[in-house]
Structures are given as structure tokens and as C-alpha cells.
């Protein structure tokens, strides 16, 4: 870009609607052909790429998962740095309100098909932070969760078991979290806006 253009952009100010699409998302219907659909599901189940976003203390168990001992890359699971390349969002533990805002943003930026894995008891019912003023209690009111992994904190083996469960769901075509989110978008947004007091995001941006 030339200097003048930069200046123009800077003078006009940052307009999110120019750079982001804020159209409502659409439900992705599965392919009608049974064999093609099965092939798609099989392919999706075997390339689960994780978004590397350590949202809570569960993120300390993720490095051992990728490294030599547990080595999940043999199952086609691999961390990716950006939401655009990732398909699985591991919510690793409790979510404070400040993080939830970033998590929603990252989740909406991910491309379909996308799945959410709730790691730890804190995503189920708040765990030991059930009475904290800054952590959410139930994750499924804010994001659609496909698989929960209970425990505080779950061992890497439990995580691998969770991934196997997710794979099973995907192969059967039952991991429909993203579509659920789209169908109930208003309900999810109302819940999110209830706790995120300074809502300065677009309604849905991706």
C-alpha cells in the first residue's frame, strides 16, 4: 500500500463492517449421497487440528500430549496457531469472563467443520470454582460442546479417550455442535451478552 492509502485508512478510522463479514451464519447440511458423506466424515475424523489456545490450567497437559510420550500426531491430531487452520477448540478448564469474550471471537473465526471439547470439571458445572465471581459455570450455555472430558485435571490418556469419542461421533455424523450454534444463535448470544457487560464485538464476525 502507498503511504497516502495508509493515511486515508487511518484517517477514516477502523470500520469493522468493511473488513469482517457480519452476515448470519448458515447451517451446513450434510451431503445427500451416503457414500460421499461417509467419506467426508471419515476424512474429518482423521484430521482433527487443535487450536493452540491455552484458556485455563488444562493447557499444561497439552504439551505432553503432543510430545514423544503420548504423541497424538499418530491419530492425525496436531496443534495449529491460528483459528483459520484449526478444527477443534479445546476449552482447557475454567473460563473467566474476560477469556470467554476472546474464546467466542476465536470460535466464530474457525471454519466449518468445527468441534468443541470441554476439558475438566470446570467446564461441566464450574468444578471447584462453582462460587467464583469471575468464572462461568456451564460452558454449554455459551458454546456448543461436543464432548466433555471430566477430571481435574484429566490425564493425557483421558484426553486421548475424549478424542476417540469425538471421532466416533464424527464418523456417525452426530457431532453437530456448529450447526446447533447456528440454529440457536439468538439464545447463545443472549447468554453471552448477559455476562459480557461491555459487548463491543460485531454480532457474528468471521
Amino acid at each position, binding site marked *: 500500500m502507498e503511504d497516502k492509502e495508509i*493515511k486515508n485508512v487511518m484517517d477514516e478510522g477502523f470500520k469493522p463492517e468493511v473488513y469482517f463479514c457480519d452476515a448470519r451464519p448458515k447451517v451446513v447440511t450434510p451431503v445427500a449421497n451416503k457414500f460421499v458423506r461417509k467419506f467426508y466424515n471419515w476424512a474429518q475424523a482423521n484430521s482433527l487440528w487443535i487450536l493452540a489456545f491455552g484458556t485455563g490450567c488444562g493447557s*499444561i497437559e497439552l504439551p505432553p500430549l503432543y510430545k514423544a510420550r503420548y504423541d497424538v500426531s499418530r491419530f492425525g491430531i496436531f496443534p495449529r496457531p491460528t483459528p483459520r487452520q484449526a478444527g477443534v477448540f479445546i476449552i482447557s478448564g475454567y473460563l473467566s469472563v474476560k477469556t470467554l469474550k476472546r474464546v467466542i471471537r476465536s470460535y466464530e473465526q474457525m471454519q466449518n467443520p468445527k468441534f468443541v471439547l470441554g476439558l475438566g470439571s470446570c467446564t461441566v458445572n464450574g468444578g471447584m470454582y462453582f462460587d*467464583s465471581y469471575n468464572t462461568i459455570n456451564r460452558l454449554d450455555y455459551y458454546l456448543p460442546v461436543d464432548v466433555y472430558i471430566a477430571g481435574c485435571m484429566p490425564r493425557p490418556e483421558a484426553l486421548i479417550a475424549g478424542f476417540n469419542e469425538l471421532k466416533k461421533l464424527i464418523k456417525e455424523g452426530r457431532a453437530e455442535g456448529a450447526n446447533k450454534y447456528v440454529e440457536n444463535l439468538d439464545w447463545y448470544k443472549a447468554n453471552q451478552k448477559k455476562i459480557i457487560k461491555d459487548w463491543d464485538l460485531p454480532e457474528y464476525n468471521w
Partner: protein
Amino acid sequence: MKSKELSETIEINQQTPTKTILNPWQPFWAEQKEFDLKSGKYLKIWHGPQHPGVTGNMALELTLQGDVVVDCKTHVGYLHRGFEKLMERRKFIQCFPIVCRICVPEPDYNEYLFAAAVEELAGIQVPERGQWIRTLVLEMIRLASLTMGLGGQAGAFGLVPVGQWGVAHRDFILDLFEELTGGRIYHMYIIPGGVRQDFPDDEFPHRVELVLQKLEKLILDIEKLMFNNAVFKARTKGLGKIPAEWVELFGITGTNARAAGVPIDVRKDNPYLVYEQLDFEMILGSASDVYERSLLRKEEILNSINLIRQIFKKMPNKGEVRIKLPNVLHWKVPAGETYVRAETSRGEMGYYMVTDGSEYPRRVHVRGASYTHAMALLEQLAVGVSIADVAGLMVSLQTCPPEIER
């Protein structure tokens, strides 16, 4: 035209550090810099919270000029759970499951410090063998944290194999913890009056020794790959220098202070547990850059290995590990105030506890070891550093966000 811009950049970078303000109420760390973002010379980007380079879950708001950081603001609070509030509505024994979650890589220090504060206020004496086992646990978790930290330091500069080795070898130590305490990451092993139980069997020291030998071998490999690596040297030498006079100003403790040549070590200065009976040297550096700090952490790993061997040699073979205490749910700790501290791998960690004679603590304040490193210090150190080195700089300060905001 581009070359002209470049020369301007260099000039400005040379000018900024020499600027001094003489007003004593506005020292250099309190200065608020203003940048004209509309001029197109500067670019503001967020480094985190969703970024693979940051340690844990925190964010840096960086203002860049070209590749170079000209201003840095740290943003924390993404991991805030309100521990100090939660502790006020839990009984003393109920606090133990939550205190260990304050610092994820080194949970045992939180348990020890909370227990030590309660013991001091209530006047509880810990049996000797219990004290030795506590020291052993603290040294083992320091070893685990340092091993992973050293790997992370190398990984931040692109030496991924060292990161792989570090995490894989930390797992061996975690296995030992599983044998000893039953937990892999969170142990809840140290309680007031001692530790929960004795060693699983007589062969436990032998198995620890095997892991220590593995780690010694790993250190030899790391020396070859990391500390003799020309790229690593070129990128880290001279990066992130902390002047020795900043140590008191910014409250720097631990290896970060020792790398600057300031002899501070809680284990030597205010010996707790059985550190008086152990024989070790304070490890000091002088260059105070990222390379020196990682070198010091390598030496700390060797020191910890040495200490664990000494502990097994010197500890009494038999004895109580815990004294008998009344029903844990009805503890009433006498009213008082105290501050206890310990040396973690990142620096001095402390618990300030106020009790009022009831079943609940009145107030517990946790002094996270990296509280000051990650906030005030990083804002100063990041200025003038290339954007590519910011992640490595953060790891070298050993920032641990969960203990900053708690």
C-alpha cells in the same frame, strides 16, 4: 524513499532510551508514551492471548515501528478466578485443593506456604522426617518446572527438539509424583502438620535416582544442542538485559536477579525447612541477558539434582511424617498475621495470611513469584526488542500468568 524511512527509524530508536525526565514523581517507569498511530509510522498489534508464543494466557499490547517494539503494555486477568476471595469462604483444610491451582507448573509451593503460614500462626511443629519429605517434594517440582522451562526457552527460539526433550523428561518426574502422592499435576500432598503419607516403598529413592541419571544425560545433550548453538547464541546474547540496579526497583527475585549478579536466594538468606543442613552454593551470573538466564537455569537443574541426592542421604530413615491433629473441619487458628516465603524456580513466592480466630482465614494474599517480572519489568524490557524475540524474552522471565492474577 524506503531507505529514507529506514534511517529515520534507526535514529528514533537511538533517541528513546537516552531520554531522561528529572521530575522525581514521574520516573521513567511511570511515563506514559503517546504515539501518533494516524501517521502510519507505527503499528499496534496484540501479542496474545490467543498466540502460541505467549506463556500461559496473557496479552501484550505492542506498538511497533517496523520490526522493533517501541511501547509495550501488559494485560492480565484472563485467568482470574478470585482465589483470595474463595479462600475467605472455605475452611482451612478446604483451601488446600484450591491453593495448589494458583501456579500450575509448581503447585507444591502453594501448598507448602499455606501450610507453613497456618503452622506458624497455630504453633504446630512438623516432625523431622515430614520436613525432609517436604523439601524433597519442593525440589522435585522445581526440577520439573525448570526442565520444562528450559525446553520452552529453546522452543521460543526455534529449537523445538529441546522443547520436546524437556516436556518428555518432565513426565518422568510426574510419574514419581504419581507414585508418591497419587496425583500427576496437582498433589495436595503437604498439609499442616506434615505430609499426607510416607514413601510408597523402600525402593522409591532408587527409582528417583534412575530419573536423576536420565536428567543428567539430558543436560549434556542440551548443552551440545542449545548452549553451543551459534544461532541461539546470536539471538539471545545481549537480549533483555536487566541492569543490577533494577533488581530492587522492580522487586526482581530468583534466577532473574541472580543472573544480574545480585546474590538473593531465599534458601540461603532465610532458610526454611531443612535447607540449613544441605550443602549447596548460590549460583550467580553477571551478563544478565537471556542466554545467561538460561545458563543459570541449567545450573539450577544440576543443583536440584545434587540437593535431591543429599536429601536421600541425610534424611532419617524412620519416623513420623505427620503429627496428630484434631478434626480438620473444626480448626480454629488463633488470630494473627504472618508472612512466609519460599524460593520457587521463578523467584520469591510468599503468602501473607491474616486470621481472626474463626474457622475461616480472614485474608490470604499471594505474592506470585513472577508478579512484578511479568507486569512492570516486561513493559520496560520489551522496548527496543524485535517482535520475533518478544516470546523468548517472556519465557526467559519465567512469567506464569495464573499466579499473577490468581
